[in-house]
């Protein structure tokens, strides 16, 4: 075999399979400006839609006068709720089991809510007509605080029957949506009551927004001749959109074709179904012409799905030595005007019950109260699995607060509470079964690399120098250790609107040995066309460069639940590997026939099947593909195709260890990131280059959220952060360099052991940046201060601690 080895390596390299940093096939188009995004879609006779939006957060609509707008040359239609009502399209179901107004029906519930939809010859006329629609409002009292909303007599949702159950059980108050619980509250309280050490903290995870660079939009084209509707749009889940569109419109699903073209970033923003999509469809049906709707940035920030807005109160108990004994968490969740969270149906608070984190906590309880307010609806997972960022921020802050209470080092407190390698698969107190992990190894590697002890010594010296008046800068060391829960998910407990959260891959090998594979997911920058071909290359022996990957066209791609929650690799990636294995199984029979041996006497070798013990006798996949189509093989159907629908047996649990070193100017509140180290364990690594890119991007979004990015409202419900002047997106100038590292702990239940990585850096990054800020002030008595840590809030922390003299 020795003389075969170099050749085998060459063949292997030629495949560009799993594990290599294959350059992205997508980039050839993108670098030349030849992407095809929804606003690039241009159809003959296409009309443009634009919204009249509410300037008020809560108001009754007394009248809408569209006469002047209709009289404007070039205006084709102005739709209001009254026009949609006969079609039953003035309201639509949300992904969370609630319903939402498509166009304001009698009242408005948040600033920026869609009131009327103008359809015109071009975007200019449409914008002019929007100004001409006269809406007479009667202002109503505004509720922007969820705690106040739960006490208030003001009824926000008059459409809901008082006292009736909601989609997730009983409602305690007319502005209450649900109470969702996990764990054993009684047992938890008992442990907390009897514990040696207990500490409590309330933290607000502020409202923010995924804000991809491309806003949301759609183009609907109803062909009245053949009864077919084609819908292009910014959809992270095109197949779900087709089903929902069919249910809403009554058009049979086979007559609807949904296309997600290139998507300019999603980060959760493009999971939901928005009134703009529905209105473009209705307008196309009404006018018989294609109708385009593209929101502007202000509309995007004001009305499409926000993220977070969780008030979290935790109590954690431990022994004097620091062994955690129990955890209690209560959340007041501000969902805005409609419950439009994008969560699996049975999880109205997402996977918030992963909030025991990476720690072996024997008993725990979680209760989440969902509340209506006069804010935009949403509650999507912004670059994280469902509510996992909230959960990880919660536990990573509770650990820091407990360390303060115990006067312990926070790194050591984590270490003594980690779930041990030998405990996996590990069932957490709140029910999840963690698949695999080796937290101690990752943590030790991280701390050693950053020279943690030396950092702490430097920090202590800095504190002394500060006290002596020699410096006005403090040093913070941010730690975080996170466990994500991704890859939703097993159909037995995960569905969206009843649709099980499997995913799919269909592969077709061509006679000459190249291939096309289609999946139920859709890339928004993750590089699926590159990495899924790598999986197939390794599984089938066909070079990745000879495999086309297609997604996003529901007429051609197999049904799948889409791309969010880091589910593409764990679910569709598994489907891809298994479809590849089906190809290989058939190829083996064909190879055996061609080589005139028994099926069991051939074995797969990179890109071919060889006769066992006689490697000079082989058939390449190319030979086999040709034979599959062109040679009659007894007992074997012609062709070489496979399809796999994958229902994962469990979630996957990527994890990581992050350290941030930050210097903080106490006088101005300006933080400076000196160093950021990120160790990620996402199981088997398909393309290290892409993994590293995902980590850089996720960390930068984490930096933004931790250090200033928020959707803020004033008391009247006016959005204060409606443009990129005030909504913080860091530029290259505000962003540091990151050091990346990894360990590899494969998922035991995933066909290739991969766990998913796109969201980990955001989930782990937010608490790491926040902990760095807060740690800088620990020596001066700070326990906890709220994000976002923008200049004035950091300054206020210093001021409250008396550091300004």
């Amino acid at each position, binding site marked *: 075999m020795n003389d075969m080895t170099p050749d085998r390596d060459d063949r292997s390299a030629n495949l560009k399979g799993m594990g290599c940093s294959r*350059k992205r096939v997508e980039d050839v188009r993108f670098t030349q400006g030849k*992407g095809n995004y929804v606003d690039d879609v241009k159809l003959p006779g296409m009309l443009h839609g634009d919204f009249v939006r509410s300037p008020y957060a809560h108001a009754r609509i007394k009248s809408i006068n569209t006469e002047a707008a209709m009289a404007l040359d070039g205006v084709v239609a102005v739709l209001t709720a009254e026009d949609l009502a006969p079609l039953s399209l003035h309201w639509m179901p949300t992904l969370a089991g609630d319903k939402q107004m498509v166009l304001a029906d009698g009242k408005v519930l948040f600033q920026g809510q869609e009131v009327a939809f103008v359809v015109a010859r071009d975007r200019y006329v449409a914008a002019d007509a929007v100004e001409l629609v006269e809406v007479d409002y009667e202002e109503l009292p505004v509720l922007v605080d969820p705690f106040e909303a739960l006490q208030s007599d003001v009824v926000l949702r008059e459409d809901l029957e008082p006292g009736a159950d909601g989609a997730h059980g009983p409602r305690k108050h007319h502005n209450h949506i649900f109470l969702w619980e996990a764990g054993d509250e009684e047992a938890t309280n008992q442990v907390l009551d009897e514990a040696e050490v207990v500490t409590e903290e309330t933290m607000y995870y502020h409202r923010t927004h995924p804000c991809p660079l491309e806003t949301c939009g759609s183009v609907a084209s109803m062909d009245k001749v053949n009864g077919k509707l084609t819908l292009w749009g910014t959809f992270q889940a095109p197949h779900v959109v087709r089903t929902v569109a069919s249910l809403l419109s009554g058009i049979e699903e086979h007559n609807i074709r949904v296309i997600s073209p290139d998507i300019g*970033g999603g980060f959760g923003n493009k999971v939901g179904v928005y009134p703009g999509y529905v209105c473009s469809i209705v307008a196309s049906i009404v006018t018989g012409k294609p109708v385009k709707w593209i929101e502007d940035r202000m509309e995007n920030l004001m009305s499409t799905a926000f993220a977070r807005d969780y008030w979290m109160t935790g109590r954690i108990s431990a022994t004097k030595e620091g062994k955690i004994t129990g955890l209690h968490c209560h959340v007041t969740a501000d969902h805005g005007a409609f419950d439009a969270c994008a969560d699996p149906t049975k999880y109205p608070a997402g996977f918030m019950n992963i909030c025991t984190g990476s720690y072996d906590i024997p008993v725990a309880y979680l209760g989440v109260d969902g509340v209506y307010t006069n804010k935009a609806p949403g509650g999507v997972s912004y670059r994280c699995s469902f509510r996992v960022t909230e959960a990880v921020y919660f536990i990573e802050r509770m650990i820091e607060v407990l360390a303060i209470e115990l006067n312990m080092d926070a790194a050591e407190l984590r270490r003594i509470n980690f779930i041990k390698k030998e405990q996996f698969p590990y069932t957490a107190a709140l029910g999840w079964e963690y698949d695999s992990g080796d937290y101690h190894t990752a943590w030790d590697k991280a701390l050693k690399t950053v020279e943690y002890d030396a950092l702490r010594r430097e920090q202590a010296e800095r504190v002394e120098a500060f006290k002596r008046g020699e410096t006005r800068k403090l040093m913070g060391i941010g730690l975080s250790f996170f466990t994500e829960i991704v890859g939703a998910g097993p159909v037995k407990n995960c569905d969206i609107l009843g649709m099980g959260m499997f995913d799919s891959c269909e592969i077709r090998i061509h006679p000459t040995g190249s291939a096309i594979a289609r999946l139920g997911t859709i890339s928004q920058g993750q590089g699926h066309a590159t990495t899924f071909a790598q999986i197939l290359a390794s599984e089938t022996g066909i070079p990745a460069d000879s495999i086309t990957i297609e997604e996003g066209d529901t007429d051609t791609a197999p049904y799948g639940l889409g791309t969010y929650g880091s589910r593409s690799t764990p679910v569709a990636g598994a489907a891809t590997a298994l479809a590849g294995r089906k190809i290989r199984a058939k190829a083996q029979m064909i190879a055996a026939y061609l080589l005139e041996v028994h099926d069991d006497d051939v074995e797969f070798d990179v890109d071919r099947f060889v006769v066992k013990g006689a490697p000079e006798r082989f058939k390449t996949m190319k030979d086999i593909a040709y034979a599959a189509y062109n040679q009659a093989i007894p007992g074997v159907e012609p062709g070489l195709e496979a399809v796999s629908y994958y229902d994962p047996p469990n979630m996957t649990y990527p994890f990581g260890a992050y350290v941030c070193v930050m210097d903080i100017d106490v006088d101005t509140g300006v933080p400076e990131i000196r160093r950021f180290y990120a160790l990620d364990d996402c199981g088997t690594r398909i393309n290290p*280059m892409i993994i590293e890119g995902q980590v850089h991007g996720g960390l930068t979004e984490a930096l933004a959220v931790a250090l200033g990015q928020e959707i803020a409202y004033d008391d009247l419900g006016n959005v204060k952060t409606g443009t990129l002047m005030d909504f913080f997106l860091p530029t*290259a100038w505000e962003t540091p360099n990151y050091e990346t590292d990894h360990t590899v702990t494969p998922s035991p239940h995933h066909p290739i052991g991969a766990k998913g990585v796109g969201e980990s850096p955001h989930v782990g990054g937010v608490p790491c940046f926040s902990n760095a800020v807060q740690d800088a002030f620990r020596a001066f008595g700070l326990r906890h201060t709220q994000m976002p840590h923008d200049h004035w809030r950091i300054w206020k922390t210093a001021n409250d601690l008396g550091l300004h003299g």
Partner: protein
Amino acid sequence: MSDKMHIKLKVNGEDREFLAEPRELLIYALREHLDLTGPHVGCDTSHCGACTVTIDGKSVKSCTMFVAQANGAEITTIEGIGQPDALHVLQESFREHHGLQCGFCTPGMITRATKLLEENPDPTEEDIRFGMAGNICRCTGYQNIVKSIQVAATEMNSAKEAAE
């Protein structure tokens, strides 16, 4: 509504003429009258740079310029920077170093980078970060964008030296 005006531009080396309302933003004129859909609209308020084109030698956010203002100008968009069989060094470098993900900011990013390297052929990392600060990317965290530009600068300089 105001009357349409006769607009003449030289775009990517070609003379182009069309009728447009003065208020039409240059970005929409390029995208919709001339089918140059490389540059994109990201923020509408001149913060993100996805709409960046080069106008008479200046990097400009074309969402904040009326087509009337641009009348008579010479414009280069991403479509004029390289051709499929002869890509610009920056286009190659962004691919080589994973300087893009969703691709939406990339046309503006590369267009701006061509101008940056014209003005400063040998930039430090800090120069690149400062010189690219008018372009927002939501995906990459910039690290690989900076690297792509840095390597492209080195390659362009060596090519120039070799030619001399």
